[in-house]
């Protein structure tokens, strides 16, 4: 470490330097190669998803040319403080630093610079800080933890039973999904619905929160012309905050035929709500909002459908919720969040686990809505044990086997939210 970094700060007085730096006692500047190298480091960081601008690079030069930079041990923490902006940056910095300056972990370095994170639109996004990198993408921790829990109960009420029932019923109510034109129409409908829902929800807030307080500042200002007699009063009302919606979509085998439809609905929701997040789960949980934000609707839906193609295995709702509660909930859920779970409730994990996780989730968010495609089925009653365990924590338990049933949902949503 020492060798490389001292080389970086070796004086080369002939080069143009930031005028501020001349004031330094040592009045050193960086050699051109060293500066190029620093710029290269900045680029590497940028490729790894760090947000670094010119100002940061300039400040890095200030650090490297400051008298204190004689101590090489100081440079790493200093650059770390400067270049990092989030916890995940913070965790990855040392590795990248070593790879770049010390040539350590060369293989890893190539991997690192290859994982450029796509630029997101910040306004729409709940940024993924505080979630360790590995929890953001597909892999999550549900599997590792499931080791301790017994594999799955061999009791008859498994997923398979549900799946076969589902198959026979979906053939009728969602067959229009097959035709490409209909797919487009469905999507349009879903996103329109999501938009209407949003507007309704927001307006609802507005009417209810009519905190009418007197605004003294404006009142006095307005009444100066009356010589201070308060004739014309100014009022304040609470600002309306849009609701945040988090959707958890079950993409397991038993939900197979509904998944395609709900993926479209999901896209519509994420598109229409200013703050919405979407997750897909079967045996594991995946955060899919970034893929859903793809402007190209078809591509986004295709991408997601691929992800959502369950690995035929069971549904671990409990495990997936645990992953959600542990890694994502803190970031995506606040007190104004409604969580919408779309699942048939056929859980191959422990029902008690599901109940426990539902209880945790309930405590965090404003409302839990559970949409169950099976309710549309005439003689359905929520018999699945998982469903039984989850029901006490659900604010609204409603059918969702076609668009009409979703549309019918709206008044209920308005009432409970």
């Amino acid at each position, binding site marked *: 470490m020492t060798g490389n970094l001292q080389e970086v700060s070796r004086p080369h007085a002939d080069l143009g330097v930031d005028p501020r730096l001349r004031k330094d006692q040592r009045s050193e500047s960086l050699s051109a190669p060293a500066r190029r190298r620093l710029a290269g480091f900045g680029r590497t960081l940028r490729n790894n998803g760090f947000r670094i601008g010119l100002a940061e690079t300039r400040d890095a030069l200030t650090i490297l040319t400051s008298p204190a930079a004689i101590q090489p041990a100081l440079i790493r923490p200093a650059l*770390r403080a400067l270049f990092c*902006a989030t916890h995940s940056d*913070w965790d990855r910095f040392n590795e990248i630093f070593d790879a770049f300056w010390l040539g350590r972990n060369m293989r890893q370095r190539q991997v690192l610079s290859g994982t450029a994170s796509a630029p997101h639109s910040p306004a729409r996004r709940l940024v993924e*800080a505080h979630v360790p990198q590995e929890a953001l993408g597909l892999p999550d921790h549900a599997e590792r933890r499931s080791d301790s829990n017994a594999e799955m109960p061999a009791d008859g009420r498994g997923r398979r039973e549900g799946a076969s029932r589902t198959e026979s019923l979906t053939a009728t109510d969602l067959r229009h999904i097959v035709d490409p034109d209909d797919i487009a129409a469905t999507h349009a409908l879903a996103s329109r619905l999501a938009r209407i829902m949003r507007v309704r929800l927001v307006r609802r807030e507005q009417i209810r929160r009519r905190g009418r307080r007197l605004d003294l500042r404006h009142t*006095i200002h307005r009444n100066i012309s009356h010589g*201070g007699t308060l004739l014309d009063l100014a009022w304040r009302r609470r600002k309306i*905050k849009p609701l945040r919606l988090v959707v958890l979509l079950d993409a397991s085998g038993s939900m197979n035929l509904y998944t395609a439809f709900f993926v479209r609905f999901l896209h519509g929701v994420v598109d229409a709500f200013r703050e919405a997040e979407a997750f897909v789960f079967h045996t594991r949980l995946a955060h899919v909002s970034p893929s859903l934000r793809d402007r190209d609707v078809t591509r986004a839906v295709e991408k997601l459908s691929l992800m959502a193609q369950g690995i035929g295995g069971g549904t671990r709702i409990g495990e997936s919720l645990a992953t959600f509660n542990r890694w994502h909930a803190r970031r995506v859920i606040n007190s104004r969040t409604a969580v919408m779970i779309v699942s048939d409730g056929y859980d191959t994990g422990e029902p008690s686990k599901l109940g426990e996780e539902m209880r945790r989730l309930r405590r965090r968010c404003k409302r839990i809505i559970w949409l169950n495609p099976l309710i549309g089925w005439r003689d359905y009653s929520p018999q699945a044990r998982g469903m039984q365990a989850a029901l006490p924590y659900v604010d609204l338990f409603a059918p969702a086997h076609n668009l009409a049933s979703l549309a019918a949902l709206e008044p209920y949503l308005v009432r409970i939210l």
Partner: protein
Amino acid sequence: MTLKREEIADKLAAVGYVADHDIATALWLMGLLKRPLLLEGEAGVGKTEVGKALAAVHGTELIRLQCYEGLDQNAALYEWNYQRQLLAIKARESIGENADTIEEHIFSEKFLLERPLLAAIRRDRPPVLLIDEVDRADEEFEAFLLELLSDFQVSIPELGTIKATAIPCVVLTSNGTRELSDALRRRCLYHYIDFPDVDREAKIILTRVPGIDATLASQIARMVAAVRKEDLRKVPGVAETLDWAATLFGLEMHDLRQESEALYETMICLLKTQEDRARVTRELSERLLGKVA
């Protein structure tokens, strides 16, 4: 205001803040680059303490702004003293002053109530401005803050622009209840505070609970580290550790193994929810104790 890194490290130690190595560097950079410092970390790792310690290091005033949802300019920046203004209007009216003079009078500095942000830029000596839990404030406030942090001037429509007499040292803390904007993050230096390792925590206990036994302190630190590894809803922070250490010290314990009963009972200092309390059973606490003591 610009101190050397070593000076900062020494002074931090002198004011009783047991710093991890890198935080001194970050504080030094604040002076060098004139950037605010954003601190993140779990609740209870001592983020707020950094601000206090920094004020002590520089020997300046600490001005603290606690953020909350709905925090607006009136509460953060300035407010007019309306009651006095109303009185003044009435009083001056009765002696027959004209409206313009009254207006000029009631919108003078005399009627201005300083709130933390305004106070921070109007001091003679640069203070430390601690903006606590900035993630609790809303996006609009964050944008406003960003503007203030880059210009260090405030415009009050009735008075005009107030420029900073001294640029404060700004420390922001965040708990991650809401994601901060990229712009604010970029503007700031960043430091993530982790739970202290066992040695550092023992040192913190020794500094903050004077008179405590060094062995007990290190036992406590190891025990707390073990408890943190359990799957808890609310992981105990440094403050909890200190409470617990003080309790055990008050009970005149010298060795954790001495009274496992009292140990288990006093663990309410660490475990703050019923659930966690239920999870850390007597048996578990004894097992942990066996491992660490």
